[in-house]
């Protein structure tokens, strides 16, 4: 017990039983049901995701406790390279036989978003493999389910969401601890702590210990003294307003100190909103000139690695832009409805379309023995002319070069439907022919039709995609 007293409270008051886990009823139910049905479940692994401190790992431990599982844990503090995961996989695949002798097992892969790109190379792919062969349930946790590197897990694991805790729930947890620790607690102080924790119970408990332990009481006063409220950062709209309306250079310069925007983001917000704020064309042009110069400094930073230049970039994009309103200085204070940078919204679209264009250029470059930039500058425009003017012929070229439908869409513009129609028809034709040839060949060789059946099945799964790449590689030869 003496040992226990020395534990930090986040450990000491970690839920040990299922009913001690606050909130997250939905997640609880899902996990229990899934575990009971296992291995008769659609996806053989679970991925629990949610913000820090909402009880993901605790819940797994509590469930395991209650249902009598032994937890085999692997987390970010372990090396998780391909070979490390494979070791676990071997154990997991043979573990079934052990169940008779011991307790049921469960593999907990904690913090899968902490699998490092470089140091844990191949780790995530190995996890996917592990899930396939495992004879025991696998539960994973992560903070951000949208992390692109978790994409490989999406198809093999069921994602279970944990919600941010409500403030009331956090206060309840804190009160329980206060009672256990015999702390006199001040309602306002708990409220202050809970507000600041923003749904993170663990942070709240830590704060409570930091303020309360040893003092016998939790007061608002000490809470405020020790836990400074996080600096309130200005949102983009306030930032812009302050920047544009600045009368002095230093005022404009200082907006970045307390803003949710960093200089890169500010650059985009300004690009979007300069013409919203300024009405005179000369002022607008001047402001963009300042922004353009700021960007030149940013480029120079990239090339030289000299971060001292950042100061000048910031001067120009803050004070430089703000003080550009010379013809119409009253514009500075004009109430303006700022818009969110369209570029940020378009970014992913732009990325997609550039990717398509890059891929297209790569195909053309290989085909014609030229560089991708020549392909972009010379060949794509010509293809565009063909695709717009002669859909049927365009479709033939698309088939011949092994282009994807996305590429066709980009090239054909308004004509895309027609070209794609022709394209699909042509491909069917080819496939039919191919199938016929194969049959003929097989008839000749007198073989069974097993390999063909397998191929047919594969085709069903991912239709057009496979054929188009098959064709690409065919024509590359």
């Amino acid at each position: 017990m003496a040992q226990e007293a020395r534990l930090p409270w986040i450990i000491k008051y970690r839920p040990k039983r299922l009913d001690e886990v606050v909130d997250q009823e939905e997640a609880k139910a899902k996990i229990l049901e899934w575990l009971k049905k296992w291995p008769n479940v659609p996806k053989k692994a679970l991925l629990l995701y949610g913000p820090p401190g909402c009880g993901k790992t605790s819940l797994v431990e509590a469930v395991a406790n209650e249902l009598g599982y032994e937890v085999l844990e692997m987390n970010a503090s372990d090396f998780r390279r391909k070979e490390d995961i494979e070791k676990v996989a071997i154990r997991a695949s043979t573990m079934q036989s052990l169940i008779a002798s011991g307790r049921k097992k469960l593999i907990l892969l904690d913090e899968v978003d902490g699998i490092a790109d470089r140091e844990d190379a191949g780790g995530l792919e190995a996890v996917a493999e592990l899930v396939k062969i495992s004879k025991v349930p696998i539960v994973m946790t992560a903070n951000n389910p949208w992390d692109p590197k978790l994409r490989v897990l999406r198809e093999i694991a069921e994602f279970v969401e944990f919600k941010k805790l409500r403030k009331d729930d956090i206060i309840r947890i804190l009160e329980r601890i206060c009672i256990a620790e015999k702390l006199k607690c001040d309602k306002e102080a708990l409220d202050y702590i809970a507000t600041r924790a923003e749904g993170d119970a663990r942070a709240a408990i830590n704060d409570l210990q930091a303020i309360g332990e040893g003092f016998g009481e939790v007061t608002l006063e000490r809470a405020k003294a020790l836990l400074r409220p996080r600096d309130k950062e200005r949102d983009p709209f306030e930032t812009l307003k302050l920047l544009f309306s600045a009368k002095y250079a230093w005022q404009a310069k200082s907006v970045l100190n307390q803003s949710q925007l960093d200089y890169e983001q500010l650059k985009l917000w300004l690009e979007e909103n300069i013409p919203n704020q300024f009405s005179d064309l000369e002022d607008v042009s001047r402001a963009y000139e300042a922004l353009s110069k700021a960007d030149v400094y940013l480029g120079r930073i990239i090339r030289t690695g000299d971060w001292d230049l950042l100061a000048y970039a910031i001067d120009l994009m803050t004070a430089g832009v703000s003080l550009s309103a010379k013809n119409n200085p009253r514009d500075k204070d004009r109430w303006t409805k700022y818009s969110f940078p369209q570029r940020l919204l378009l970014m992913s679209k732009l990325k997609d379309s550039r990717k398509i264009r890059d891929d297209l250029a790569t195909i053309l470059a290989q085909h014609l023995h030229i560089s991708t930039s020549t392909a972009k500058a010379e060949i794509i425009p010509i293809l565009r002319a063909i695709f717009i003017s002669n859909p049927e012929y365009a479709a033939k070229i698309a088939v011949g070069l092994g282009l994807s439908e996305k590429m066709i869409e980009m090239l054909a513009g308004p004509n895309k439907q027609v070209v794609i129609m022709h394209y699909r028809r042509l491909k069917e034709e080819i496939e039919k022919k191919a199938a016929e040839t194969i049959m003929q060949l097989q008839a000749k060789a007198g073989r069974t039709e097993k390999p063909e059946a397998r191929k047919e099945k594969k085709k069903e799964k991912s239709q057009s995609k496979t054929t188009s790449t098959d064709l690409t590689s065919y024509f590359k030869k």
Partner: protein
Amino acid sequence: MSKSVSELLWAEKYRPKSLKELVNQEEIVKRLMKFVEERNMPHLLFAGPPGTGKTTAALALAHDLYGEDWRKYVLELNASDERGIAVIRSKVKEFARSKLPGDIPFKIVILDEADNMTADAQQALRRIMEMFVETTRFILIANFPSKIIEPIQSRCASFRFTPLKKEDVVSRLKWICEQENVVCHQDALETIYEISEGDMRKAINILQAAAALGEVTVSHVYKVVGLAHPKEIREILNLALQGKFIESRDRLRELMVTYGLSGTDVLKQMHREIFSADLKIPEDVRVTIADYIGEIQFRIVEGADDEIQLTALLAKLALLGKKISSMKG
């Protein structure tokens, strides 16, 4: 036109496979054939304008040296697509390492657009060329020989490819049309020659696109050229010059998303538009825009963000448009 189900780009379909098929650059061909005969050659430097057959000659040389299997013994690299000299080094190393069959005297590395490499990278390249010289010969291809550093030039046998003559290009185009059963008009072929500035690849590409419109006529040729360069760019320039800055910017973004263009791509197209008769602006405005574009392109090179610079350009154009109209008014 071709009856087959699928169709390729004619520029590749009608690329000569062997040195014998090369109809131009006779001097060069003769010297290259000598290499084939002797089964030995130094490093080569092919210099000359685009579309004069440099790559074709390199590939044909390889074909003639190694026969149908030639691809096995050739590594094709494009300097502007390879990221850094380190990548080139490792690729060449990998390639050079594999054993040579008894009858193959050496392998060939074809490095296209070598003049796009920095002087430092070329220094490194030179060392690579020396390192593997026992088993490997390089064919460097460049538009501008003066951008190849001295020490490389002096280690290479140098070949200068000259622009193709009108009659050569036209007769080749005519021959292709015959192969493809396409009706073509002499004046259209001549127009193609002029537009493509002696660049055979470009000429064949235009031919194919014009043929796609049915016949190869002068008006089809012009139509192709027009289609190839979307009128959106023109509209954006016009909008900006009319002072409709925000609108022009929005259109610009749309364009970039639709076609996947980068800022530099757009700027290059704008640069081309300045010289288009379809852009109806006084010549002195064109001149001023050309000046602006030079300045902004320089900034793009110096800067970090293409699009910021393009937007700044549009703002400048808007201001220019206003000044002009106020002068008129």
